[in-house]
């Protein structure tokens, strides 16, 4: 199956700081999604981004499919941004998840 590596595994930020999370994958894909897992365990869909760049408020994401990586940017972080961020990729529907980046934003 497709291997997905996320870095860094853990990230501690001061409120207001910016950060970049990375997702590398081992094969060509036609689906890439970023999720935020909240403290209740729910997976919140952030971006569907198999290629290109998207922005949603303080979050943005870029996927360079030819180089097999995606980046998630968090700007002006807030304590509510804390949680685990997962990258998931797929080819022909089934998603393979990375191990996640645990983000802790301190007030």
């Amino acid at each position: 199956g497709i291997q997905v590596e996320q870095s860094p595994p853990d990230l501690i930020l001061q409120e207001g700081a910016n950060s970049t999370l990375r997702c590398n994958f081992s094969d060509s894909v036609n689906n890439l999604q970023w999720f935020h897992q909240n403290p209740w365990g729910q997976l919140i869909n952030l971006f569907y981004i198999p290629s290109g760049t998207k922005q949603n408020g303080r979050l943005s994401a870029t996927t360079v499919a030819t180089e097999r990586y995606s980046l998630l940017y968090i700007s002006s972080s807030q304590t509510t941004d804390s949680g685990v961020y997962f990258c998931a990729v797929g080819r022909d529907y089934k998603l393979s998840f990375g191990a996640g980046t645990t983000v802790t934003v301190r007030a």
Partner: protein
Amino acid sequence: EPEVTQTPSHQVTQMGQEVILRCVPISNHLYFYWYRQILGQKVEFLVSFYNNEISEKSEIFDDQFSVERPDGSNFTLKIRSTKLEDSAMYFCASVAILEQFFGPGTRLTVL
């Protein structure tokens, strides 16, 4: 905005008991999935379902698991005889084209 719903949100059961986890996918979606996440680990694919049959399943999805679409709206995952290691968060997802929409999950605790 349409969303995937799952019930129950939390299920506690005794080892050896049967459990049924329920999902209502987004209407008009054609592909349905179950994933699971053991506490502290990554989310893992279990099974995909299309046109009223399993299209792909993982090694985890053994004979103890089954899926069904009993009517036009519900999609269920049954575990026949639960084991301690089945304790996990179970997510249902549905797809229209490629983007997968996930439900809020059912937390299964096997005692």
